[in-house]
């Protein structure tokens, strides 16, 4: 991975995450784990009237898993649940390598992780936070996964 923009963004969010802390007022909480590599996060959300009013995460893992969760929270805090799920769909599509330029803009900094689409081994790390968020706010997904 030679892309210095990608490296910079990942390093910044990994070393100085804005949202990596406990969230005592959270009304939703879910743990997400990648057993094969040890990425292990717990995502906290405070949702009121269908809007994600606040969010945070704790845990350990590689730089991509931690940075991706942090960037996700940057994006979804203040948004409606539906908007968050829409962004998640975009992000997952970006990682699979099929997203348009304008869609990429919607993802803001998280768009830097488009380079992961060339690194199949790191996909799990990048999507951990997003999958955890989807499972948390969309009960249908939890049912279908179970």
């Amino acid at each position, binding site marked *: *991975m*030679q892309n210095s923009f990608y*490296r*910079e963004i990942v*390093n*910044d969010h*990994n*070393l100085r995450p804005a949202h990596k802390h406990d969230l005592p007022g959270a009304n939703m909480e879910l743990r997400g784990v990648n057993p*094969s*590599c*040890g990425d*292990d996060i717990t995502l906290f959300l405070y949702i009121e009237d269908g809007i994600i009013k606040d969010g945070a995460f704790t845990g*350990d*893992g*590689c*730089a*991509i898993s931690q940075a991706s969760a942090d960037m996700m929270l940057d994006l979804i805090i203040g948004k409606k649940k539906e908007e968050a799920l829409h962004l998640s769909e975009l992000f997952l599509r970006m990682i699979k390598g099929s997203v348009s330029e304008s869609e990429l803009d919607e993802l803001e900094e998280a768009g830097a992780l488009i380079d992961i689409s060339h*690194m199949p*081994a*790191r996909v799990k*790390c990048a999507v951990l936070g997003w999958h955890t968020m989807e499972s948390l706010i969309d009960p249908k997904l939890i049912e279908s996964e179970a």
Partner: protein
Amino acid sequence: MNWNDVRKDFPLLVSDPSLCYLDSSATAQKPCCVLDAMRKYYEESNANPLRGLYDLSQAATDAYEDSREAVRSFINAKSTKEIIFTRNASESLNLAAFCLTERLCPGDEIAITIMEHHSDLIPWQMTAKRSGALLRFIECDEEGLITDEAFDAAVGEKTKIVAMTQVSNVLGVRNDIKKFAEKAHKLGALFVCDGAQSVPHFRVDVQALGVDFLAFSGHKMCGPMGIGVLYGREKLLEEMPPFLTGGEMIEYVTREGATWAELPHKFEAGTVNAGGAVGLAAAIDYYNKIGRENIEAREQYLGNIAFEALKSVPHLNLLGPREASLHNGIFTFTIDGVHPHDIAEIMNADRICIRAGHHCAQPLMKFLNTPSTARVSLMFYNTEEEILRLEESLKTVRGRMGYAE
């Protein structure tokens, strides 16, 4: 021995000189002679072995059985009846564990070490569940060494089977198999040895070690993927039921039942991997040509350099023995503040192939109190320059991850 010439035997390494392959414990690269032997087999001798009555099938059978003799001689087994071809060490260990189940009763014990690869752990968990036996763990110290006291604490009168790796795929430590096999036998237990990380690197003599079973893979010793070996003492293999059943492992079959073919065919159901066996035999020839003592000395030499190189990297924590000679070319480490997957990604950007993760040894990782680590592993075809490149690249990792130093 001109090691630069040896390296030229490996097409993948020659065709891509900028690649630095330091993951041979996962799988070794293949020399021309192995690839040529397999091609020659398929071009000149291919038919279904052990079945046909025509000359070509006999040629395939001979190629396959000659390979078995090459393996027998390589590990000094008494008879080719004791050499079972499998897919890999994992299948060999599954075979042993599954087929030894009926020797166990509830209350019996199986003892394995905490440093076993999942391949030498899960089969025994399953066997314990099937038989009602208890699975016990032989602990190691923080450098990975197993003391007599640790062995005696887990192995006793109730122990029926001891399974132990000869070299740890994580820590590189070499267990004293001869001593522990002797101790197990004194208690009436069988001894199963995982040779996946030892047979490719130094001389392993099953009779001198006194093991009852030895498992290893062809692909880790420059042979092809998909061929492995289980050595077992003839008497034990005779007593064991078959593992997989089907074609070519039977003597007579009626509507109601079957009798089994003679060893070793009893354990080789279905069409065998003759091309793979031929490739493995070519790898054995290659090892013998270079000289096994030369290979061991070369890897020890490279290991000493790698040990010093890794120790010179700031913030790098090397796991396992504190002495270079005890590492057997396997070096597992962490770097402060950097996840091992990120280390491997940065190494990859510099075209250096290393392993990162739990190395299929999660209980050991838990014991070492780290979810994952990075690992460098060496083979005789590696070079001093590659180790220097590794060192220089590792020294840049923290900076590239955004740390000031």
